[in-house]
């Protein structure tokens, strides 16, 4: 892996979104990944619809939570994703109003990625932002800087929040992952969370995945 990488600087990441009072982080994590994959394969950065997944992914539980792996399947089954403009976010479960005619993006497959953080960094630099899930310990009160909670306090066994890895690097020799969250820009560092890299902090390495666009 290169020593640092940031997909935001390369135009592969849309603006920080806000899931509102709804446990739909899984949908934001997956659309963020698909936005990056589509940009890298097709050259267009499109802001994609989370509400389509909240309403139409019947395996997941809308605002009660969901899993990225199921969301990829739902995108394949539905036939793709509409854009944010065409199917905008309301933050609560509605009747599915997906229209195949409005699909702008499709995916062909999805893959699970390595649990080795060095390999994850290499994959990210080569292939784009990664959907991950972490233990959100401390995030309720996080303001800025690189978070590195004690291991027993932020165990990989209690994964409860899906987010998007968009880059990595070092700040004053402290290695970090740059993580796009979905709690708006008035949280964290303009909506981003920085987590220690290389120690499996908060289970950052245990649930990494990506869509595949051919």
């Amino acid at each position: 892996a290169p020593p640092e990488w940031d997909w935001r600087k390369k135009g592969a990441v849309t603006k920080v979104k806000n899931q509102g009072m709804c446990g739909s982080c899984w949908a934001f994590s997956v659309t963020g990944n698909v936005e990056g994959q589509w940009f890298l394969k097709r050259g267009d950065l499109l802001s994609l619809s989370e509400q389509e997944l909240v309403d139409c992914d019947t395996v997941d539980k809308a605002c009660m939570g969901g899993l990225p792996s199921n969301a990829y399947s739902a995108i394949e089954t539905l036939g793709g994703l509409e854009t944010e403009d065409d199917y905008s976010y309301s933050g609560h479960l509605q009747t599915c109003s997906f229209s195949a005619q409005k699909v702008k993006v499709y995916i062909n497959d999805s893959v699970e990625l390595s649990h080795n953080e060095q390999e994850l960094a290499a994959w990210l630099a080569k292939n784009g932002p990664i959907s991950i899930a972490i233990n959100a310990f401390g995030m309720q009160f996080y303001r800025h800087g690189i978070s590195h909670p004690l291991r027993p306090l932020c165990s990989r066994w209690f994964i409860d929040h899906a987010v998007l890895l968009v880059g990595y690097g070092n700040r004053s020799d402290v290695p970090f992952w740059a993580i796009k969250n979905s709690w708006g820009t008035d949280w964290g560092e303009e909506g981003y969370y920085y987590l220690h890299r290389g120690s499996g902090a908060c289970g950052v390495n245990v649930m990494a995945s990506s869509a595949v666009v051919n």
Partner: protein
Amino acid sequence: APSRRDAGAQAWEPASPELLRRPARFALDTYNRGLAAGARAVLGTVSGRVRRAGRGSLYSLKVTLEELPCTDPMVCQLPVTKKTLLCSFEVSYELGKHALLKQDCGPVDTKMKDDKNETSSPLLPLSDRDPLPQDFYVRMASLFKYFITTYNRTYETEEEAQWRMSIFINNMIKAQKIQALDRGTAQYGVTKFSDLTEEEFRTIYLNPLLKEELGKKMRLVKFVGDP
């Protein structure tokens, strides 16, 4: 979501008493360290289940503890009668070490009633007995005012405002503890979620399904190092 080969990938399995003995003993020792001098608890019944992943295991234990009365007159503050507690512990075992991840104990009769609404909070191994500075509540009131202004909070009644302020103060203490235990460069403090209880925050913003990981299995990408 992904494969069944690592963290959280395997389902919970019932565990034999022999298998649970060591994590239960570890949880007990940790529990006893938090008791007043002279007091200690002993293990009663132990039951539980285990999840395995790679070389690690996570134990979820239901344990009864007998808290023995303090018998040393040099350290006992008050005569305390023996009581039975029902505890839920979550203990991980990784890299040859146990760690207590969650602890939730209560008297056995009330605990039985409350068990359906079980709440447990992560351990914060800092003393709650440190005295608060004299101007603490003044500073907190001022901080709460800043919070309300910054995040445009309005509360319907005076009672709700009081209630939210008490949550805010507890949260600031919690943020301070998280800060003290962070090994990175992060700063914790007032955020737009500072007037929510941990339970509210979890329910509204987090995703409990991720913990169970029973999603569709995906193909694992093989990493090929580029020479």
